[in-house]
């Protein structure tokens, strides 16, 4: 048992150091995406109303250059445009664009900028890139399992599995089980 405990100590310590960075990535992003219904965890979105002199609902080929001119945009600043309806022209740019009512001149300038750092953390956490990161994420998950299995064996006595540690571990195991049962019954 002494030898097993020693191996556990070594594994727990070495893996513990190794996964610090990844754990912070997954934990911070976890909080962010848990609240996806409260905010956009990936993009900072801005919608600014503005008005231009109306150009009228004429043919797209005629009104489009006028709209760009009145918005102060050069052609090379625009990806493309789309006549969404007889009254509305959408102008698309790299990180946003405009929605212009041709008849009233009312417009909305929309921007969607990736949130610094958080965008990248969420990209890794949600594995949006797939491919190589899938391997990293799988290995990390495996290492977390090793940490979970070796942790309870590190301490002996009252603070270990036979005492307070065991109670704490029991709580951590029972909590998700209770939640799963309640959710199934509620369905």
């Amino acid at each position, binding site marked *: 048992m002494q030898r097993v405990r020693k191996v556990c100590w*070594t594994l727990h310590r*070495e*893996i513990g*150091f*190794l996964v610090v960075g*990844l754990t912070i990535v997954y934990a911070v992003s976890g909080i962010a995406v848990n609240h*996806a219904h409260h905010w*956009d965890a990936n*993009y900072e*979105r801005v919608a600014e109303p503005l008005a231009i002199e109306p150009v009228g609902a004429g043919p*797209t080929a005629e009104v489009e250059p006028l709209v760009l001119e009145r918005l102060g945009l050069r052609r090379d600043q625009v*990806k*493309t445009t*789309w*006549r*969404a*309806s*007889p009254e509305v022209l*959408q102008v*698309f*740019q*790299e*990180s*946003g*664009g405009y929605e212009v009512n041709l008849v009233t001149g009312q417009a909305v300038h929309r921007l*969607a900028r990736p949130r610094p750092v958080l965008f990248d953390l969420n990209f890794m956490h*949600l594995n*949006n*890139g*797939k*491919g*190589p*990161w*899938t*391997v*990293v994420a*799988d*290995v*990390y998950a495996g*290492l977390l399992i090793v940490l979970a299995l070796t942790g309870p064996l590190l301490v002996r006595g009252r603070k270990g599995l036979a005492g307070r540690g065991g109670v704490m571990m029991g709580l951590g195991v029972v909590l998700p089980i209770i939640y799963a049962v309640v959710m199934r019954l509620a369905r």
Partner: protein
Amino acid sequence: MRFLASLVLASTLLAGAALAGDGPALTGKSLKTYGKGVAASDTVRVSALLANPDKWVGKTIRVQGKAVGVCEHRGCWINLASDVEGQTLRVKVTDGEIVFPPEILGDMVTAEGVWTANKLDMETTKMVCEAEAKKSGKKFNADEVTSCMTTYQLTGTGAVAAKN
């Protein structure tokens, strides 16, 4: 020995990062692939598809158009512009499996998937009509809705976006 063990663990993680994967493969400087990409050889014109939508239900097809709308919450759908002004087609993908970013707006997108019809019940039909009326600033009268609506969408398996 312990240091060696740590190195082995660290290199396992790094090796993962170096492995080639099945993720978005950029086949060109300005192309970005989502999901399984596209494989079908013929592209169906959006206007032709929407003119006779029932004909294509259940078939795997490929469509092309400018991305003019994108799901702001989960990036789980995009609207593609038709070759007819004002007409759009929705490409819906499984949440989390493919994520369309806001930057896709304005890009020329080729998408592939199964053309799907969703027959709505009366309650949902009225909700959709009310939302559309609200969006276009028109008055909505629920009593005027007398028949159920069928909506169509491409249940997408992959797409390729080209920067304009």
